[in-house]
């Protein structure tokens, strides 16, 4: 693949590119799913191709192909240059990039057990055991489970002289129990909803997740939800479980700090951001106990946003985002760093495959832990609701007004969990919400959650992002907001 990339780079430069980079990728995925005692989907996918990104006549062009013949590669590179020249017909100024040094390196994410070597029978066997355990609870009408393994082997070459090979292995797994009854549909998922938990790890993640041990509890909870009380409407103190808080971080911090949104690049689709440039280092984004980083470095953990170099060849970094409540950092690229007068790209350019251009994406956007256990946090809460596992999520196109629903909640009275609550929901304005945070649990409660399918860009791209979070409490939050009309 390196040779294809090198040929494409040469052709791009000789065709007139003043800058060029090439990503050549070998991608592999294996996916299993089970449903009500049967294997419902077993699929293998492999995909190989390259994408050529160039600047010519001061504008960007990109072309991609899976025709890896010499002619195919040359045509692709020349096409990228032709596209750049067409872009120049409607440019306002030449593209400028913040400087970076060339890098020659090879990095592979840690992977103790190669998931692609696991026997299919072992994977299906585990999912079917979980399935049987859930369906052993009367009232469960649908049991679903899945495992997902991905390997991305990428060569990055640039006209700066970079030659970087990165190999990342991703693993994900999860299951859910659905119950139809009492005129409603309820669902409970483990370890997280919408596919489960994902990390940049091998099959060892599956072994760490304790899937089977939690199956019966999940099934019992979904049935119990039918007779649980409806989440009340009003203003309450809310404790968010770590997985739900991960998505809260994603939507109300991770997306607004993407500098391309701030600068208007996503205005037609994913939207813009309230974090306009003058708010950097001036906006009190959150309460003083809140510290958030965007950290792609392996030492932060095996998150979906972990890598050594981004897809522009810029080293992955730890970018402080919120420091003691103050907004201090964006996710940026080499081009947007110049526009916003930043000293350097934060190394956040990521592409979904060989056929997509890199755009600014979250890495691991994590809330740093505080202190204490979840049970201590509950004990210190007089009147509140603990909400766990996301069920719905929505936010406006500048990232102010949000609303979330979770699968399950528990009322907290006098420091104790009391009744189970169904259909919990809460909403607010991002900065007001984060400024109401008054307690964050400690490292023992912190997990690096994975969101595998974040959508952005045109044409659409999906990306895995990581979010470290421990449960946290927020004061005076509007709850029950989704059912106000009922």
């Amino acid at each position, binding site marked *: 693949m390196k040779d294809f990339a090198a040929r494409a780079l040469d052709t791009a430069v000789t065709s007139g590119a003043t800058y060029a980079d090439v990503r050549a990728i070998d991608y592999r995925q294996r996916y299993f799913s089970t449903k009500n005692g049967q294997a419902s989907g077993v699929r293998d996918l492999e995909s190989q191709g390259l994408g050529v990104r160039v600047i010519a006549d001061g504008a960007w062009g990109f072309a*991609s192909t899976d025709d890896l013949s010499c002619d195919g590669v040359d045509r692709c590179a020349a096409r990228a240059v032709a596209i750049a020249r067409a872009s120049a017909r409607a440019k306002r100024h030449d593209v400028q990039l913040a400087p970076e040094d060339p890098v020659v390196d090879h990095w592979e994410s840690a992977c103790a057990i190669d998931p692609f070597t696991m026997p299919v029978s072992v994977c299906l066997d585990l999912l079917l055991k979980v399935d049987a355990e859930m369906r052993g609870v009367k009232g469960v009408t649908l049991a679903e489970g899945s495992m997902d393994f991905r390997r991305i082997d990428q060569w990055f070459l640039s006209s700066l002289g970079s030659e970087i090979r990165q190999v990342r292995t991703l693993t994900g797994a999860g299951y859910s129990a659905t119950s139809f009854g009492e005129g*409603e*549909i309820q669902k409970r998922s483990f370890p997280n909803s919408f596919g489960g938990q994902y990390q940049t790890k091998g099959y060892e993640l599956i072994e760490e997740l304790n899937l089977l041990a939690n199956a019966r509890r999940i099934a019992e909870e979904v049935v119990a939800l039918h007779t649980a009380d409806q989440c009340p409407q009003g203003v309450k103190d809310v404790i968010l479980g770590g997985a739900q808080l991960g998505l809260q971080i994603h939507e109300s911090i991770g997306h607004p700090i993407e500098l391309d949104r701030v600068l208007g690049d996503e205005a037609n689709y994913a939207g813009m951001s309230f974090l306009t440039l003058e708010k950097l280092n001036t906006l009190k984004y959150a309460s003083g106990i809140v510290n958030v980083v965007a950290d792609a470095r392996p030492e932060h953990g095996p998150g979906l946003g972990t890598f050594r170099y981004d897809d522009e060849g810029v080293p992955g970094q730890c970018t402080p985002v919120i420091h003691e409540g103050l907004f201090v950092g964006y996710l940026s690229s080499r081009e947007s760093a110049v526009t916003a007068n930043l000293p350097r790209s934060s190394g956040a350019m990521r592409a979904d495959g060989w056929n997509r251009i890199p755009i600014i994406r979250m890495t691991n956007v994590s809330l740093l832990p505080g202190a204490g256990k979840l049970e201590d946090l509950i004990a210190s809460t007089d009147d509140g609701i603990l909400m766990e596992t996301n069920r719905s999520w929505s936010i406006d196109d500048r990232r102010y007004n949000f*609303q979330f629903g979770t699968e399950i909640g528990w009322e907290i009275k006098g420091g104790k969990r009391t009744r189970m609550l169904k259909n919990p929901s809460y909403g607010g304005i991002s900065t007001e919400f984060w400024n109401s945070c008054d307690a964050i649990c400690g490292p023992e409660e912190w997990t690096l959650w994975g969101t595998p399918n974040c959508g952005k860009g045109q044409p659409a791209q999906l990306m895995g992002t990581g979010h470290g979070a421990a449960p946290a409490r927020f004061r005076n939050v509007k709850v029950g907001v989704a059912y*106000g009309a009922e």
Partner: protein
Amino acid sequence: MILTRQRAQELFHEVTKYSTADETEATITSNQYALTRFANNAIHQNVAEDSTYLSIRAVAGQRTARASTNKLDPASIRRLAESALELARLQPRDPDMLPMPGPQMYRALDRLYPETSALTPEDRALTVAAVIGRAESDHLTAAGVCSSGTSVMALFNSRGLKAFHEETISEFSVTMLGETASGWAKKTGPNHLELDPEGLADRAARKALASADPKEMAPGRYTVILEPAAVLDLLGFMVFDFSGLAVAEKRSSLTDRVGQKLFGAAIELRDDVFHPLHLGAPFDGEGVPRQRVQLVEHGVVKNLVYARSTARKLGVEPTGHGFPLPNEYGEAPMNIVMEGGRQSVEEMVRSTERGLLITRLWYIREVDPYRKIVTGMTRDGTFAIENGETRGGVRNLRFNQSLIEMLSNVEMMGPPERAAGEESFEMVVPAMKVRDFNFSSVTKF
């Protein structure tokens, strides 16, 4: 290079040389696509892709699995066929699995426009430049996309089934941004000549200008006029519930409701890939011919759609809406047509004493799967209506609304048109006037 019928047959022939499965199905998809993206009144991203994938489903006894690749050399095809069979052999036996279908007859659909295939980056750049000019003339900022492409799908199996479909697709979408407000318009279709980018730009610009300095309206229940894009993006959260398997598995909002009058009597909904304003192949993921299915008639949930295996389980006839096997979902209607009425949006506005005119909706998500409550935001052109006239822009609002209730509260509809949004696939739907649409909060812009 886009896939031809001959090349597709050659690839299948190669597959049959190497596959030793009891039954073999091969799906070959090929895409050539280019997109010119603009923001801040300049082209900032400009991309093109070219890809061909071969996907083999192998059957061994009552066991099946699928493997896919875009490596099309003989050694890779051999490896793919072997891999699909090996995976299939490792599955538990599925007693409900049917043999593959035999040869089928398909109605011809002509959705290929060579002029659209032939569009160049320069053509798209000139289109975008003209739209940017329109923005600048009103001191607005334009953002959007101009795209075109060709896609081909071929499906063969070892029982002699052969299916082939090719079509072009083009899109123009534009957001016009002013200091305090924005407007949006979008159109897609197989023939780029029908998109009228300058007309879309004009519409978006007028919305941006007319909604400047938006006022805040209190949350509550309002009469709304939903433009077709807003209707489409809401309806998209309902259509997967018309799957026979979803109802059988009790995960659909139509569970225990088929045959009931669930919506207003004016609601007529069908799935119809043959409608002249639709795109798509006349066959499903197994090669079964797609049928026209009346989903809702006079507000009554009349029919569902069924893949072959769902149909067999439930003792009904398949309708040709199955996804490629194996899959978790069964089937879904993908070519929605909702009948409408005769009233224009202007007439609906004139008939409204107090309400809101909504251009589009955003970040819609399902809150309650059985009551079918969805939430989301208005976006890019939301106007107050008073005494039959629009009175300027309003700040965007969040809604929490049951779609079942909404479709029971429709007071007027316009003629159906091909609409495009961002939350769902294209549909042919009307604008509609709906009473008592529930807004629960407002945002800051």
